[in-house]
C-alpha cells in the first residue's frame, strides 16, 4: 500500500500541537499529529490514576486559554466547558486567613479587615495592571520580530512595535519597564503591606521559574492574572469540566472534525532531513512518515538536540539551544481524599474550597523555599497551590469523595544525589506535612497519593528537566529571544521545520498561543 504524504506532521499531541494542527487543518492542510503516549494532551491531561478518581496529573488550571482559540475552533461545541475558579484562599500562620473572592466588594471588605490601606491600593493596583495587560496584549498576540533583520516586513513590525510603546505614554511605559524588570516582592512592596496578600500575589510570579519572589524579573508574571479580565470571557483562572485533559480532548476533537489525523503511541525518533530541509519524521517503530513540513510541539532541547543531530544545524544555533535555561523547579502531588480538607483557619465546608488554596504565608516563606532549591534540595516548607477539582466538577471523584491537586514549588530537577523512589516519597511526605499544618485532617483522609517529581515529568511527559514551561520565562528568554535569537518566529534553521510549543513566544501555560501563532506563520508561507 502506498503511504500518502502529509502536508504537515506535528510532533507531540500536547495542547499547543493540537491547536496548531487544528488551525492548519482548518486552512485545508492535510495534517497528522503524532503522540508518544496513549493519551493526548501532553502535560494537559486528566488520567484515572486511581480507580474512580480523575487526576489532573500535571497542568491543573486553564490560565490563559486564548478566547480567540475557543471561538475559532468552536471548542464549546467540542465539549469544552470552563468553570471559574472563584477565589484564592491563603491560611496564615497566625491562625487567620485571607481570601480574594471573585466578587470585588467582597474582596475589598476582606482586605479592609487586614489593612484599609491595602484595600484602597488594591483597586488602584488592579486598574494599573489592567492597563498594562492591555499594553502587552498585542505583544503576546504577535509573532516576535527579529531586531537583527533588515527585511522590510520585519522593519515595519519593529516600527509598529515602537509606535505601540510610544503611544502608551511615559507613565505607563515606565510602569511597564518596572514590571518587566523588578522582583515581584519589590513591586508589590510599593503597593501593599499585608504579608499574606503580597506573598500570595508574588507566588504567581514564581510559578514555573527557578527564581524567588525577590528575584528581578518575576514581577511581570503578575500581569497574567489580569489578562483574563480584558478578555472578558472568564477570570484569569479557570478549571475545565473533566479536568485539563478535557481541554486537550476538545481541541483534538476540533482538529479531527477539521480533518486532522491523530495517532497516539507513535513516538517520533528523529526528523528526516534531506539537504537542509525537513521532509518528514521517523518513528521509533522504524516507520517513516513523509510530509511537506514538520512542526514540533516539543521543547526546544528535545526538538533540536534530541530529534536532530548537532551537525544538521548551525553550531551557533545549537549553542543557543544548549544555553537555553530549562531548569524544572516544581512538582505535583495528587490526592484521592475520603473527605474534604478542614482548614484550621476557616473550618468547615465553604466557598473557599471551590477556589485556589495557596500555602504562601509570607514573602520570606517563599524566599526560603527558594533558598533550599538553589542549593539542590526540595523546599523544606514549599509553596503550594492547591485546588479541589471535585468541588468544581463532582464527576472527578466518586460521590462524597474528592481529588486534590497540589502544585508544589520548589522541587529542583537537579536534586542533590538525584531523584529516586525514596526521595520522591520524602518529597510527598514534606508536602503532606506542610499541608497538615493548615488542614490537619488531610493526613488521615488520604486514600491514594500520586507524587510527580520533575524527573517524573521529564520521563512521562517529555518535559526536559521537568520544566513545565519548556524553558524558563526569564527576561533573556522572552519574545524575540525565545527560544533563540533570530529564531523566535516559529521557524528553525532547518527549512520546513517549525516549532509550536511553550518554548516559543509567548511561552507556557495552557494558553494555546504558541500553537496558534505558529500556525499563522506557517500558513503565511505554505498556503495550501
Amino acid at each position: 500500500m502506498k503511504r500518502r504524504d502529509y502536508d504537515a506532521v506535528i510532533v507531540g499531541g500536547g495542547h499547543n500541537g493540537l491547536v496548531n494542527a487544528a488551525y492548519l487543518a482548518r486552512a485545508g492542510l492535510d495534517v497528522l499529529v503524532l503522540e508518544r503516549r496513549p493519551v493526548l494532551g501532553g502535560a494537559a491531561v486528566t488520567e484515572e490514576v486511581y480507580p474512580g478518581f480523575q487526576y489532573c496529573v500535571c497542568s491543573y488550571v486553564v490560565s490563559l486559554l486564548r478566547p480567540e482559540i475557543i471561538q475559532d475552533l468552536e471548542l464549546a461545541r467540542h465539549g469544552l466547558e470552563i468553570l471559574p475558579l472563584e477565589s484564592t484562599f491563603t491560611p496564615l500562620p497566625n491562625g487567620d486567613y485571607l481570601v480574594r473572592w471573585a466578587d470585588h466588594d467582597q474582596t475589598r471588605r476582606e482586605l479592609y479587615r487586614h489593612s484599609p490601606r491595602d484595600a484602597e491600593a488594591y483597586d488602584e493596583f488592579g486598574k494599573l495592571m489592567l492597563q498594562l495587560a492591555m499594553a502587552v496584549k498585542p505583544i503576546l498576540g504577535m509573532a516576535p520580530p527579529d531586531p537583527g533583520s533588515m527585511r522590510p516586513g520585519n522593519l515595519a513590525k519593529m516600527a509598529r512595535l515602537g509606535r505601540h510603546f510610544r503611544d502608551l505614554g511615559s507613565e505607563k511605559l515606565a510602569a511597564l519597564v518596572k514590571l518587566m524588570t523588578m522582583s515581584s516582592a519589590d513591586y508589590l512592596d510599593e503597593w501593599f503591606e499585608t504579608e499574606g496578600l503580597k506573598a500570595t500575589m508574588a507566588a504567581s510570579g514564581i510559578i514555573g521559574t527557578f527564581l524567588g519572589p525577590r528575584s528581578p524579573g518575576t514581577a511581570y508574571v503578575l500581569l497574567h492574572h489580569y489578562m483574563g479580565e480584558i478578555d472578558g470571557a472568564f477570570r484569569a483562572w479557570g478549571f475545565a469540566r473533566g479536568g485539563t485533559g478535557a481541554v486537550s480532548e476538545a481541541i483534538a476533537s476540533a482538529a479531527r472534525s477539521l480533518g486532522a489525523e491523530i495517532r497516539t503511541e507513535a513516538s517520533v525518533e528523529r526528523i528526516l532531513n534531506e539537504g537542509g530541509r525537513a521532509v518528514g519524521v521517523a518513528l521509533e517503530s522504524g516507520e517513516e512518515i513523509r510530509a511537506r513540513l514538520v512542526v514540533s510541539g516539543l521543547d526546544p532541547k528535545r526538538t533540536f538536540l534530541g530529534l536532530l543531530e548537532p551537525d544538521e544545524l548551525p553550531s551557533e544555533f545549537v549553542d543557543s539551544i544548549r544555553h537555553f535555561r530549562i531548569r524544572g523547579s516544581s512538582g505535583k502531588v495528587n490526592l484521592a481524599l475520603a473527605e474534604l480538607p478542614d482548614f484550621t483557619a476557616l473550618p468547615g465546608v465553604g466557598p473557599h474550597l471551590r477556589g485556589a488554596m495557596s500555602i504562601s504565608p509570607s514573602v520570606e516563606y517563599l524566599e526560603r523555599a527558594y533558598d533550599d532549591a538553589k542549593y539542590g534540595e526540595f523546599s523544606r516548607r514549599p509553596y503550594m497551590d492547591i485546588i479541589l477539582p471535585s468541588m468544581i466538577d463532582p464527576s472527578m471523584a466518586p460521590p462524597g469523595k474528592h481529588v486534590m491537586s497540589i502544585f508544589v514549588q520548589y522541587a529542583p530537577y537537579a536534586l542533590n544525589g538525584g531523584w529516586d523512589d525514596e526521595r520522591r516519597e520524602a518529597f510527598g511526605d514534606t508536602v503532606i506535612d506542610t499541608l497538615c499544618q493548615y488542614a490537619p485532617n488531610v493526613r488521615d483522609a488520604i486514600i491514594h497519593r500520586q507524587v510527580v517529581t520533575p524527573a517524573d515529568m521529564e520521563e512521562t511527559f517529555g518535559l526536559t528537566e521537568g520544566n513545565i514551561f519548556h524553558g524558563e520565562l526569564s527576561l533573556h528568554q522572552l519574545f524575540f529571544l525565545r527560544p533563540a535569537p533570530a529564531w523566535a518566529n516559529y521557524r528553525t534553521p532547518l527549512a520546513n521545520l517549525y516549532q509550536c510549543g511553550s518554548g516559543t513566544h509567548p511561552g507556557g501555560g495552557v494558553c494555546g498561543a504558541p500553537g496558534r501563532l505558529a500556525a499563522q506563520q506557517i500558513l503565511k508561507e505554505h498556503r495550501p
Partner: protein
Amino acid sequence: MSKRYDAVLVGAGHNGLVCAAYLARTGLSVLVVERREVVGGAAATEELFPGFRFDSCAHRLGHLDPRVVSDLGLGGHGLKVRRPDLAVLAALPGGDHLAIWRDPQKTAEEIRRHSPDDAARWSRFGAAMAPAVRFRGHVAVATPPELPPAASRDLLAFMELGLRLRRTGRREMTEIMRVLPMSADELLDEWFESEPLQGLLAALGVSGLFLGPRAAGTAYLLLGGLSPDAEVLRPTELVTGGMGRFTEALAGAALANGARIRTGVEIERIRTAEGRVTGVVLSNGEEIDAARVVSNADPKRTFLGLVDPTELDPDFVRKVKNIRTRGAFAKVHLALAELPRFDGATGRPELLEGLIRICPSLDYLEHAYDDAKYGGVSRSPYLEAVIPSLTDPTLAPPGQHAMSVYVQYAPYELKEGSWDADRREALGDRVVGTLSEYAPGLDGAILDRHVSTPADLEDVYGLTGGCASHGEMALDQLFFMRPVPECAQYRTPIRDLYLCGAGTHPGGGVSGTAGYNAAREVLRAGKRAK
C-alpha cells in the same frame, strides 16, 4: 548683599566637583557647598589613626571618565592613577589563590591551574563580551533620552542608540540584548566551570547591590568590570596617595577655573518660588541667591530633604520614595604592624598591590546574600581589600600598613535591632575573622581598627540607606528610569534644579561621568534659554 551665583552645587562629592569644574570653565560663577570639612564625599582619604591614612569609603576608581581627566587637566592638579599589573588576587581557602593579571596570557596560565577549559575560554570570553562592554560604555556617556521620545532630539537619541547597536553586527546585537538582562550566574555558567573564577567575576555583578549573583541584571554590572579590549578584566585603577588625591585634584581644577568651594557648612534648604529655584539656605541661616542649583546629594535627600514638599507632585514624591537605596556594604580599616600574610602570597608583596578579593565561589556569594536578605550580616562576607601603603609609603608609618576592606553584605536594615556600637564591633570581628582564614595571624598584626557600618556611611557621607550608588543599580533603576523617569535627563520637575550625583545615569562608581553628563545638560539648557 551677597553675590548671586550662576550655579550652586549641593555637595562636593566627586561628581559635584566635576560638574562644578565644567560649569566654571564656561565662565559661570559657581559655588560648591560641602557639609563636611573635607571635599570628596565618599571619595576621600582620611587619617583615621595618627600616621595612617585610609580611603574611607570608595577605594578604587570605576572607569574614570578619560574626558574628565584631560578636559580638566587633572594630571596637572596632582592626579596619578596606578594600574597595577595584578588586577585582582582572589584568595582561596586552603592556601591557594587565583591571580588576574593585566596580561591575558599570564592570567590564562594562572586559570589553567584551576581549569584548563576555562583558561582556553578566558580570551574568548573577553572577545565575546567586548561589543556589549563597548555598547555599555557608549550608553554611559550619553544622556538617556526621554521615554517615550517627546522631542525630536530624544527620538534622534533613541535612533542613534539603535543604530549603534545595529552596527555592532547582527549576531553581536542580539547577544548584547540577551546578555544585558541576564544574571551573573547565568552568564558565567555559559562560560566557566571553575568556582574560584566564577566567584571572582560574579562579585563584579553584585558590587554595591542588595541582590545576589542569581539576580537578573547582575550580568549588566558584571560587564562594567570587563574591558573592551584584550585585557578581559578592566584594569584596577587606584589613586596614588589615596582617593582623596583624586577629589583634591578635582577641587583644584574647579578652583583654577574660578569656582568657589565652601566646606563645613550645610545646605539646609533649596529655596524655590513658583516652581523654580531661587537659591539656597545654609544651616547657619545664610541665604545665597542662585540662578540654578545642581545637587550632588542623592535623589531622596534632594527631594525629600532639601526641597519644599509643596513644590512637588505627590506622585513624583511617591516615585522618589520608591527608589530602592538598600545599603549592602560596610568598610573596615585596619592599621597593621606588618603586611598581612595571605597564604601563597607571603614574601610576594607584588601580589597584594591590586585588589585582594575574598569570594571563592558563586555559591559563597549567594550564601552571603542569603544572610543579608533576611536582615543579617553575611556570616562569610564577600570582601575586597586594598593596601595602598604598599606602593605609597606616606600612607602609613615606615614598615606598617593601612588596609581598607570593603564588606558585602551588611544590610542597612537589620532584622533585629539597629546598628549600635556592639553590632559595629561584631561586624569588625567577623571581617577580621574571615580575613584571618585566608591570612593567618592577621589578628595579631592589627594596631587599630575602624569600622563604618551602613548607618555610619549614611551619617558621615549622607548616603541614604547607606547606598553608595545613591539608588541600587538594578535593571528598573537604570538609564531612562534613573533615578526616576522625570529626572533621567538630569533635570527635575523644579525649574533650574538639576541632579548630578550617582543617583543619575550612569550611576555609582568613581567615574565622574554623571557629573560630566549633568554639566552638559545644564549648559545645554542655558544655551536654549539665551
